[in-house]
Structure formats: structure tokens, C-alpha cells
């Protein structure tokens, strides 16, 4: 489903060139639960941006569901992000002026889904993450864990090919982190593909497979033997 071969990313910072990714190849199949780990500067953010279609590789190939993305324009990438990828961010990234329901409806707005259908699907997504009681709360009226659950509802509401989570528990306390990891576990059990970037080993251990990066290269790609399940 996700297929990277020899992906390089070079940033031009004036006179200095930074090789963020030095030829990464990987393949993630449907139903997988992958944790991408590595120290800061290892290239994991760059890799995540490329997988998330927010950035393009300098060279190499990235095929998403068989589509080569290097030839696509910005609008086509926006379309694919909308349909194929569900983003979960460290800082939740909800729109503060909108309530939970409207936040979850947002991607469907850009997919031109009719209002009634939007509402129905948003309520269902919020039910899945256990927030059906708080659909009209604004982000500042919700706890961090609840906000992240709204974000997960927003990520799954378009039935994307995979969830792309960037340090999803980075801003949460332990209990909330466990809540989120439970939801991820349940979603993955129900068939959702998850790609999660984290630097916490505890969190990474919830995945089925671990990809370790260092200096722009994958240095480890192994299944997790004793993964945490619920």
C-alpha cells in the first residue's frame, strides 16, 4: 500500500545542504501497525511528511496504493490527503472556534459531502472514540485526551487508507496516553492501518512493527515481539 524506494530528501539551507533522508526504502501493507522511531534529526519527521503527502521526495519513488505521487500537483496531493490519510498530531490541531462535531466534519466539507451525511458520519466517528456525550464542546472545554480523541475521530471519518500519527501522546499524561493507545489498538484490530511516529519506546511498543531511523537511514526494521495489547 505504502511503497517507498530509495527516497532521498535534501534541504537547501542557503549554502548548506542537509541530507534528511539518504535513500529510504520501505513497504507498509494494509492492516499493519508501524512505529517509526529515532532520535531528533534522524529524519523521522521528514519521512512522516513525505508519507503524509505534505512534502515530496527530492528523488526516489513513493507509491501510495499504486499511484506514483512525485508527479502529482498540490491539488491532487490535497485530494489524496483528504481521502487516503488520517492525520493525528502531537498538538491535536483542532480548530479552536469549532466544536467537536464541526471539527470532525471538516475533512468531509472539503470532500463536498452533503451536510446531513457529514453530520451522521461525524457523530458515528465520535461514538467510536467514545466522545458522543461531548460533540458540542469546543476544544478548550475538553481535556487533552479528549481533544486527541476528537482528532482521531476527524482522522478516521473519511475512512482513509491509513492513520498517520505524529507523536500522538506527546502532549498527554500517562492515563490519557493509554486511552489513545487503546483506541489505536481497537482501530487496528478493526483493520485500520496505522503509521505512528514517536520517540517513546513505551508507545512504540504498541505497534506490531518498528522502523528505527538514524541519520536519514533505516537502521532497524523488525516486528515487535512483546507488543502491548489490550
Amino acid at each position, binding site marked *: 500500500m505504502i511503497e517507498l524506494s530509495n527516497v532521498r530528501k535534501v534541504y537547501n539551507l542557503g549554502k548548506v545542504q542537509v541530507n534528511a533522508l539518504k535513500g529510504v526504502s520501505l513497504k507498509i501493507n494494509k492492516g499493519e501497525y508501524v512505529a517509526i522511531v529515532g532520535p531528533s534529526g534522524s529524519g523521522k519527521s521528514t519521512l512522516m*511528511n513525505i508519507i*503524509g503527502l*505534505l*512534502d515530496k521526495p527530492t528523488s526516489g519513488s513513493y507509491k501510495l496504493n499504486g499511484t506514483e505521487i512525485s508527479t502529482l500537483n*498540490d*491539488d491532487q496531493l*490535497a*485530494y489524496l*490527503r*483528504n*481521502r487516503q490519510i488520517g*492525520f493525528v*498530531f502531537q498538538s491535536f*490541531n*483542532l*480548530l479552536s*472556534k469549532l466544536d467537536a462535531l464541526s471539527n470532525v466534519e*471538516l*475533512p468531509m*466539507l*472539503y*470532500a*463536498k459531502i452533503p451536510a446531513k451525511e457529514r453530520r451522521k458520519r461525524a457523530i458515528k466517528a465520535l461514538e467510536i472514540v467514545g466522545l458522543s456525550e461531548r460533540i458540542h464542546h469546543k476544544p478548550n472545554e475538553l481535556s487533552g485526551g479528549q481533544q486527541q480523541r476528537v482528532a482521531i475521530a*476527524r482522522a478516521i471519518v*473519511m475512512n482513509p487508507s491509513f492513520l498517520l500519527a505524529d507523536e500522538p501522546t506527546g502532549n498527554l499524561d500517562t492515563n490519557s496516553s493509554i486511552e489513545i493507545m487503546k483506541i489505536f489498538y481497537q482501530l487496528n484490530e478493526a483493520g485500520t492501518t496505522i503509521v505512528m511516529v514517536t520517540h517513546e519506546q513505551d508507545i512504540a511498543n504498541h505497534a506490531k512493527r518498528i522502523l528505527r531511523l538514524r541519520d536519514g537511514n533505516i537502521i532497524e526494521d523488525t516486528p515487535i515481539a512483546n507488543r502491548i495489547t489490550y
Partner: protein
Amino acid sequence: MYILEAIKVAIDSILSNKLRALLTMLGIIIGIASVITIVSLGAGGQKAILGEFEKIGVSVFSIKTKNNVEIRESDKLTLKDVEMIRKRLSSVKYAAPITEKFGLAKTDKLTKRAIFIATDFDYGNVSNIKIIYGRFLNEKDILMGRNVVLIDKDSAKELFGYEDCVGKTIKIGSSSSFDTAKIIGVIDSGNLKSLGGSIADQIPVIAAIPITYAQKIFQDVDISQIYVMTYNQNQLDEASSQAVRLIESFHHNKDKYEAENLIGFLEEFNRILSIFTAIIGAIAGISLIVGGIGIMNIMLVSVTERTREIGIRKAIGARQKDILMQFLIEAVAISLLGGAIGIFFGYILSNIIGPFINITPIISINTILIAFLFSSAVGIFFGIYPAQKAARLDPIVALRYE
């Protein structure tokens, strides 16, 4: 994104920053309000002045002998000339001779000075004379030179104590001889007084009599002017020259008569008005540009403030076009709202100022439409750059923005 949703987002955004939006709109509000005020008062003034012209009659011209040429007895205008103009020119609707005579009007108790307008039955049609009681002169009055008279209502009141004095008799004439005439009508003073000008203010009695009757009781009753009304305003020039030529051929002379009408004055008036409008337009344009810059400024601030929001929207699937529309609609909404408030204040203001300068303001649908059109154009023009800036933000950079 659906356009309705985009409008809703824009309105929410404006409402969440009411004071700022209001301050931003101020330029547009002031610009549009002043345009509406000035244009509506201008239109009201124009209508009032055109109304004055219309009263006198824009399809009326007058023929008279020139001042600076020698006029022999045979050159003088006659009732035959009036008859010919009336009968032979197809574009002529009415024609009436007129001459003024000064004299006296007497009742048993009072003697007053009077101005006599000696004319015929068509004068009622070419002028805006208003009959309050009785009737105007008719063809028989003229044909037979009947001793009938119409007097103005103020004089009627003075002479008889009441306005409706139809059927009464009055003695008219010069100081030496008087004739008794029957009052057949009372006319509104205002109109004839305006015709008589400053003389009318000093001579209270204004009386209309058959020109044929005037010839009996006064000496030297020469027709000073012939008033002619055409069917259409655009026949004026043609009819004027035709009438002059007709009279010239009848009197066997040349270059002794001239025709005048109000079209020239009207054109000059409209020219001045259009210069006035252009100046106002320029002032309004400047205030709208200033208002537009205000909108651009605040939209740029708004884009910066909402960089993260833009990043989020882009990450979850908003295309450049969606972001562009969102900010453009917001800019247009601000300027349209400003335009609407401006129209409202312009309406209030023109109705406050109007009575002081004796003008009833006219706010036409066109003015309102143009005001809206202009304010939305300002919104689009000054909103496009900030909106483009927003649309072109790199989502990665935008998401990282604190």
C-alpha cells in the same frame, strides 16, 4: 468547499472579531455613506431643478423680434403669424401670442395697479398657468374680443375679500379710460408672478385678457413674443427655424426674428452636474481605496494569525482554491457589510441634511446596486493578495507555526 460553508466560516470569523471588523469597515462605511449622501442629494437637487425647467416647458420655444435690428411696422409680429405657425407647422402643438400691458384695475372701493397679460386661448397650454376657479380664455373670447378677464387669487382676495370672484365685474384700463370686464377665472398667483419677475412683486394684480380685447382698450398692442410648443422636445430646433422662416417669408424680410428655448440651459446645467459628479466620484474613489487598504492590512494580519489553521485545513484536504475562497469571501463579506452599513448611514445622513438645503434626497436602486458592486469590488481587489498568500502557504511550515 461548498460556497455556503465558506460564507458561514467567513461570517463566523468576522463575528469572533467584531470590533476589529468594524474598525476595518470604517473606511468603506465612510466612503459609501458619503457617496450615497452626495449622490442622493445631487439627484434630488437635479430633479428639483429639472422640475423647474419642466414647469416652464422644455418643448416650448419663443419667437420675438431681435433687439439690435431696426424693426419697421411691417416687421412686427401679428396674430396672423400665430395662426400660420399653428396651422402650417405639423410639429407644432400649441402657439400663443403674448404681450404685457401695464394699467389699473378698479372695483367700487379699490384701485390697484395691474399687469395685463394679453394672449389667446393656447396660452393655457404653453404655460403652466393654473386655473383655480372658472375657466381660461377660449376661442370665442379671442375671436370676438370679449371683455373677459382672469385675475390672480391674491388680488381677488384683496379686491373682493374672497378668492372665488368668478362672475364679478372689474374695471380695467389705463389711467384715462376704463372698460368693464367680467371675471371668468381665478388663477394661481405663484406661476404668473414668476413669469412677471420683479415687476410682478410691485404690481399686485395680474390679469390675463384676450389679446383682441387688449387691442380695443389699450394702444400699441404689439405682440412681444409668440410661445410655441412642439409635440416632442427633439422637434424644437427644426420647428424653431421653420417658424422663423415662415414668418420671414410672410413679412418679406430676413434676420429680424429669433427663436429661443431652454434646451441650451438644460445642457449646460447637465454638463456642470456631470463635472460635479465626477469630482464626487473621485473623492469617493479615494476613500474606498483607503478603506480597501484597511481591509488588505487586516486580512494580512488575519492570514498570519491563522497560519496554523490554514496548515490544518490543508493537511486534511483543503486545496489552494478552498483557502483562497475562504479568505476572499471574508474580505468581500467585510467590505459588503461595510457597504451596507454605509448605505444605511448615507440614507440617514441625506435625510437629515436634505431639509436644511431644501432638497428631497433620491436614493435609487441603481445607486444602491452600484454601492454594493463597488464595495464588493474593493473587497475582491484588496482581498486577493492576502488570500493568495494564505492559499500558497506550505502546509508543513504552517502546521509548525506557533
